[in-house]
């Protein structure tokens, strides 16, 4: 398809020149740090039957339905289309959304639903979220898009001081809350976004009460979680790993469906160590788990957190009580990241079962630097090393 405005798609050179790379990867036989091959990931459904086998919490009533090969941004687009079709009071707005948005998630929606429901806003994140809260508290389903998670911060006051505590301060009033708001934003590294286009700011939500934060890992997940978020009762922030928009492709059910918010998912059952990840990092965890099996004979259980706030303690506790070891992986910096929260809870809940301290494999405590993104984002080697240290403790 013709791409119109995707800031971070990889550009094909106009002239055929050898391509330089920023990544730390040196391609070669037997190396672990090679680019993720999403087309062979066992966490993505490449055939219709895999769709229902892999995504075990897909509702029963759609299990006989048809699927279609769909990439991540198209799955988001499908979900938005379903929400707009089934909910007359839903609206999408944000910077550049009416022509499809910079990542094409809102393509063709203006044509179908009109410019009073899909529209560009002036360039003001604070305004966008404030506007969304007002709509939500008036019975409308507001689906604002923040162009990059990096641009979230001007809106943070609206999210933290308004949306997050609106229900609380109104004493649970029927309308006076921001529960019909779902904020979508692309997040995380692409390899060349640098300081202002590759951040993973989910850790900031750890100090924010009353807002749900979801990071879907795949097209099937993105569709079901977005529809569930739009129909739920609480404000939701959905962070979509932008590197997956085109890279992650699955057979996605055509019908509408919801996936459970607030629940983690075991992607791979194991016995020796629990790997906790979300977003892009589940694919790094997958490769590290494979390497751990082959090189160390270690059986890793891989869990996708899916909802990072409030996250699913039950599933993690159950797993760590079984394996006795836990490694948490995320791109965001170590300090203030999800790893702190997971490690803290796990040591309290699983202390007597733990064979080793919870290990964190994360971004460093620096901003996201362009030329060194490949060293900032955890790679397969670092995750494998984390598993090894945990096993050898």
């Amino acid at each position, binding site marked *: 398809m013709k791409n119109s405005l995707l800031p971070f798609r990889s550009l094909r050179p*106009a002239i055929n020149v050898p391509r330089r790379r920023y990544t730390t990867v040196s391609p070669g036989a037997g*190396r672990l740090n090679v680019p993720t091959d999403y087309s062979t990931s066992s966490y993505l459904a490449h055939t219709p039957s895999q769709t229902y086998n892999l995504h075990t919490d897909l509702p029963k009533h759609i299990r006989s339905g048809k699927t279609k090969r769909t990439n991540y941004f198209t799955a988001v687009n499908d979900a938005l289309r379903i929400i707009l079709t089934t909910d007359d009071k839903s609206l999408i707005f944000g910077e*550049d959304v009416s*022509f499809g948005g910079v990542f094409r998630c809102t393509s063709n929606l203006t044509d179908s639903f009109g410019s009073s429901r899909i529209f*560009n806003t002036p360039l003001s994140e604070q305004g966008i979220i404030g506007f969304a809260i007002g709509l939500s508290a008036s019975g409308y389903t507001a689906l604002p898009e923040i162009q990059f998670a990096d641009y979230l911060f*001007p809106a943070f006051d609206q999210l933290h001081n308004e949306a997050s505590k609106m229900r609380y301060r109104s004493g649970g009033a029927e309308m006076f809350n921001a529960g019909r708001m779902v904020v979508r934003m692309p997040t995380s590294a692409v390899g060349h976004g640098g300081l202002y286009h590759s951040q993973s700011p989910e850790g900031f939500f750890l100090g924010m009460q009353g807002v749900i934060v979801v990071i879907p890992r795949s097209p099937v997940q993105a569709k079901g979680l977005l529809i569930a978020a739009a129909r739920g009762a609480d404000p939701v922030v959905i962070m979509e790993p932008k590197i997956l928009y085109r890279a992650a492709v699955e057979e996605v059910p055509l019908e509408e469906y919801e996936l459970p918010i607030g629940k983690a998912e075991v992607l791979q059952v194991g016995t020796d160590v629990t790997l906790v990840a979300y977003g892009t990092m589940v694919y790094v965890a997958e490769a590290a788990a494979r390497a751990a099996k082959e090189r160390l004979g270690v059986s890793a259980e891989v869990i996708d957190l899916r909802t990072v706030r409030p996250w699913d303690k039950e599933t993690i506790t159950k797993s760590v009580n079984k394996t006795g070891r836990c490694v948490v992986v995320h791109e965001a910096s170590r300090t203030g990241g999800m790893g702190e929260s997971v490690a803290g809870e796990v040591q309290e809940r699983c202390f007597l079962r733990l064979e080793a301290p919870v290990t964190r494999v994360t971004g*460093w405590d620096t901003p996201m630097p362009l*030329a060194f993104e490949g060293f900032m984002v955890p790679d397969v080697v670092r995750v494998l090393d984390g598993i090894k240290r945990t096993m050898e403790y």
Partner: protein
Amino acid sequence: MVLLTSLRASFCVGVARARLLPPPSTARYFASSVIARQNAPMKQPPHSDSVLFPGAVNSKFTHELKFQRPQDLPAIPTYRLIDTHGEVVDKSREPDISQELALKMYKDMITRADKFLYGMEIWSLHLSGAGNANVSAGEEGIAVGSAAALAPDDVIFSQYREQGVMMYRGFTLDEFMNQLFANKFDYGKGKNMPIHYMSERLHMIPHSVGAAYALKLDQSSRIAVCFFGEGAASEGDFHAALNIAATRSCPVLFICRNNGFAISTPTLEQYKGDGIGSRGVGYGIDTIRVDGNDVGVTFGESGFILYIGIMAVREVTMRARDIALKEQKPVLIEAMSYRVSHHSTSDDSFAYRAKVEVEDWKRRDNPITRMRKWLESKSWWSGEQDQELRIQVRKDILKAFARAEKEKKPALENLFLDVYKVPSRDLEEQMAELRRIIDEYPDEYDLEAFDRGREGL
């Protein structure tokens, strides 16, 4: 303009009557009066036709219940010096510019405009896998024209379409290329995306209003200058900045490039009022709108086009700088142009605007040629010289490109440096951890591309 004049006039009368300030010789503005007002006792003359509401000191009473409708007010006019045919509109105002300066401006524009540099930016991105750069075709004139009017040590806060300003101040092709390639000579040490040029040497540091206030406190003969687009003027910080600049009377020039689009969003969806200029008036800031296309569109061989508004922008900026410095207060310049390029190298803007519209702009306004004609009419420039210049510029760019391309990336230690002035213990631990990983898995990390390789960490 009527709005501006009447506001100022009534303000002066009101102030004079209330004896809050010495009778103003020129229109003294709200900014200074606010400070004076706070210190002076508020006196209400008997039988006054107005009350000195602290929030609106010059508002007269009226019996008419009438809403002020923006559409009834005339739009702020756009100042221009040279018309679309290249003729000086007001013959008494032949541009006051030396041959040397005019040629420097012209050459800088050509260099920045040259499709080769444009092409190189894209090419370098391909090579580096970097992905995205913002280009400024259509707005060079604003940058170069305003830079020409500023003092070399004025403090500039720029965005990513101000390459013209940097070039005018002597940022070299090598320096541009080093940043584009994020190589070891990049001043940002590889931390920024392409086009985030910066230079301490050229006084490009953030946050203009605070800097302007610092200059004011220092009783400096410099001012601060801030460049931004009309899209950025929707953000809260724009409004906060203008308001603080006005209330604290900061010597700052706000130069807004109104190029019609914020990525895909046209100005009609960005604001409803009379451009960005009306906001300056609203905040009590001297404001002018200027034709940023005053001189210049050129067609490169590949159809690369450039608008240049230079003469009018230069003149307006000189006058504005004078006001900002002598009267110690902010001034807003809204320079109108049309972004004929795409938003960035990965944008195809024909998805959201008609190609014909862009073509129409190219046809309607062709100022680079006109500037050349104007230079030629003064016998300052010739066709041969133009040809030579363009060839030379391309050579220079290719050389700078080749030099920057073969340089290594900054040393790996830069990943951890400059977070704090001195790395924290946490960061030292994390550096050691990365060293350990690289040493334990040497085959997994290729450090050849980085300055000093493994030793660079």
